[in-house]
């Protein structure tokens, strides 16, 4: 994958924005999805009630996660599913490799699973000489380009049809310059069909795992999870520990929220329920922690684990829409990624909680009521406390805090600052002043409000 961190969010975003027409296109495309979402949710009078229920069910589940996980394991095993537990990404990948080796398997298809992206499963298996074919159309496109997904629901949303055409021409030998989406989709369909037919093992993600029944639900729009799972002899589903819900009836809440929030559809085209292996098939579930229990232990951040990966917070985020998913240099980008990733690696992801204006749109669009923007604020505090901030910034902040703590010094600094800006405007209007790069400085008045008030209060 070429998404190894090289630049922080601000620097990567600056490069992204240089192509302003493309930035506008990216912004409009995702805003269109947000608008579709608005239309869909406004069609449901009980929307806010559904959000509240979803939030409560998830909070309850997170508080009783151990019980629900073991209940799920017991039920699933009784149904004939093999359960594996992985403490981290490496163990997840090793477990997968072990299953592949035990059956001497080389032909593998995988439907979309953000967990396997988070664990960098494809990279790991590639190093072992095993290739996985991603079957979600967007994921296949980025896989052919050796890129990471830029969005958790729409992995190739950063690409235009021309880009897809070029990629398919190179890898699938489609006609050069044929940008017709129908033609390109058909080419992908034929290409993937060959892989489905030949596949020996299918990997899928899990949207919801039901403790009560030991079954799980996978949502796709392309039916590719089903195609894989129904043709291969072995089905391996990968899930984070937070995917558990207590009862099947709770799907009535979550399935209504998920697709409306994600794409504005009432429900995904396929909501596939897997209960037990069909005769002759093997079914495995790998249940992964990878930092989730650590996050569960952080009082301020635990409810980020309520996330159902709808990406509504991506689509609504004015920063995400104008900086693209790759500028977040992590498997899960966007606002939710910015509160999940510091838990995994605080130093490498120290920039992410700052990639927000704290406008609060994310928290209000979230179908499970995660207080995303408040957690962004809290992560900033933790990151500074742990020392992952530039020393210049720290010095500047200490200086400001000192000035503001002393009214007389504040007034003197304000007055002299304004005097300098008035008499020597070049002090502010220069390249060193980042504000001035694309914005004029505010005019510096002779009199502050304080001074005016002193003169006028008794009039």
């Amino acid at each position, binding site marked *: 994958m070429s998404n190894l961190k090289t630049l922080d969010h601000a620097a990567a975003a600056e490069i992204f924005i240089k192509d302003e027409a493309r930035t506008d296109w990216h912004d409009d495309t995702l805003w269109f999805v947000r608008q579709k979402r*608005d239309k869909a949710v406004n069609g449901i009078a009980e929307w806010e009630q559904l959000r509240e229920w979803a939030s409560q069910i998830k909070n309850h589940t997170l508080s009783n996660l151990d019980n629900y996980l073991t209940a799920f394991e017991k039920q699933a095993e009784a149904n004939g599913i093999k359960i594996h537990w992985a403490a981290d990404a490496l163990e997840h990948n090793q477990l997968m490799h072990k299953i592949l080796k035990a059956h001497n398997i080389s032909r593998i298809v995988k439907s979309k699973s953000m967990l396997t992206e988070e664990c960098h499963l494809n990279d790991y298996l590639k190093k072992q000489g095993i290739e996985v074919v991603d079957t979600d159309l967007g994921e296949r496109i980025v896989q052919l380009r050796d890129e990471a997904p830029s969005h958790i629901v729409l992995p190739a949303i950063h690409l235009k049809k021309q880009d897809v055409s070029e990629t398919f021409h190179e890898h699938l030998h489609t006609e050069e310059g044929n940008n017709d989406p129908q033609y390109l989709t058909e080419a992908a369909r034929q290409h993937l069909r060959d892989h489905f037919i030949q596949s020996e093992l299918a990997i899928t993600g899990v949207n919801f795992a039901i403790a009560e029944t030991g079954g799980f639900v996978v949502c796709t729009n392309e039916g590719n999870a089903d195609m894989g799972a129904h043709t291969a002899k072995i089905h391996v589903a990968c899930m984070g520990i937070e995917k558990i819900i207590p009862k099947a009836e709770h799907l009535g809440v979550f399935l209504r929220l998920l697709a409306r929030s994600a794409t504005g559809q009432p429900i995904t085209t396929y909501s596939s329920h897997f209960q037990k292996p069909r005769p002759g098939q093997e079914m495995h579930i790998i249940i992964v922690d990878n930092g989730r229990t650590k996050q569960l232990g952080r009082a301020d951040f635990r409810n980020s684990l309520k996330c159902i990966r709808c990406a509504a917070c991506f689509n609504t985020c004015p920063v995400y829409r104008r900086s693209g998913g790759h500028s977040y240099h992590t498997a899960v980008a966007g606002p939710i990624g910015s509160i999940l990733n510091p838990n995994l690696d605080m130093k490498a992801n120290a920039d992410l909680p700052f990639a927000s204006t704290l406008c609060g*749109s994310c928290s209000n669009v979230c179908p499970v009521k995660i207080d995303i923007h408040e957690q962004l604020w809290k992560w900033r505090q933790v990151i*500074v406390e742990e020392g992952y901030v530039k020393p210049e910034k720290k010095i500047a902040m200490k200086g400001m805090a000192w000035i503001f703590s002393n009214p007389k010094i504040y007034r003197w600094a304000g007055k002299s600052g304004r005097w300098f800006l008035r008499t020597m405007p070049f002090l502010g209007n220069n390249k060193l002043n980042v504000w001035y790069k694309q*914005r004029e400085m505010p005019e510096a008045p002779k009199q502050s409000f304080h001074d005016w008030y002193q003169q006028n209060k008794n009039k």
Partner: protein
Amino acid sequence: MKVGLFIPCYIDQFYPQVGIATYQLLKKLGCDVDYPENQTCCGQPMANSGFSALTGGCDKNFVANFDAYDYIVAPSGSCVLHIKEHLKDDKNPTKAQKIRNTIYELTEFLVDILKVEHLTSNFPHKVGFHTSCHGQRGLHLSSMTERVLPQFSKPEQLLQKVKGLQLCYPERKDECCGFGGTFCVFEEAVSVKMGKDRIEEHQKNEVDYITAGDVSCLMHLEGILKRQGSKVKAIHLAEILNHE
């Protein structure tokens, strides 16, 4: 009713006219207004940058200045929200709590406390309204497009009472302008792009002015407008409500 006027630091220094308009407007509406003269900053710039541990001095100074009032009013949703959510004083926890409960952004004070029915304002111009996020989503000054709840807007309620004013909204009614405190310099490229996009939508409406409840948003938008050489001017809501 004793009202303490809180004029945030950057308004005090760079936009005194907004402080003056707020003061005069409150006086006009019959309030007993005082400006505690040793006030400085609410501490938000540090706290939003992750340095809330450094805001002790600001908190202490704020409590010392605003302890004696029935209400505290400021022409800035963002600073008010910061005080409401984060003001603390370990030595005087009840004083800090009282301030947190009695601080109001200007428009919510006018609508909810003063219950203003009539204004003598006159502003015969086409005005685009920029919805500032902290006031909207933090203080609930208006409904938002993300939620499925009844629609309302306290600032709009007031602007509709202004004679001659033609109010317009941009196509994306409540998208952030990109100021975001220190975000405006640490994420300069995204910040400016967000601001340019807001301005473009207002310009499509052919507005004379862009107004908002927060000077910070306006300072950012004004900086871009001036660089573009635009005729559109930025003006704070208090200046319009005080305009006769």
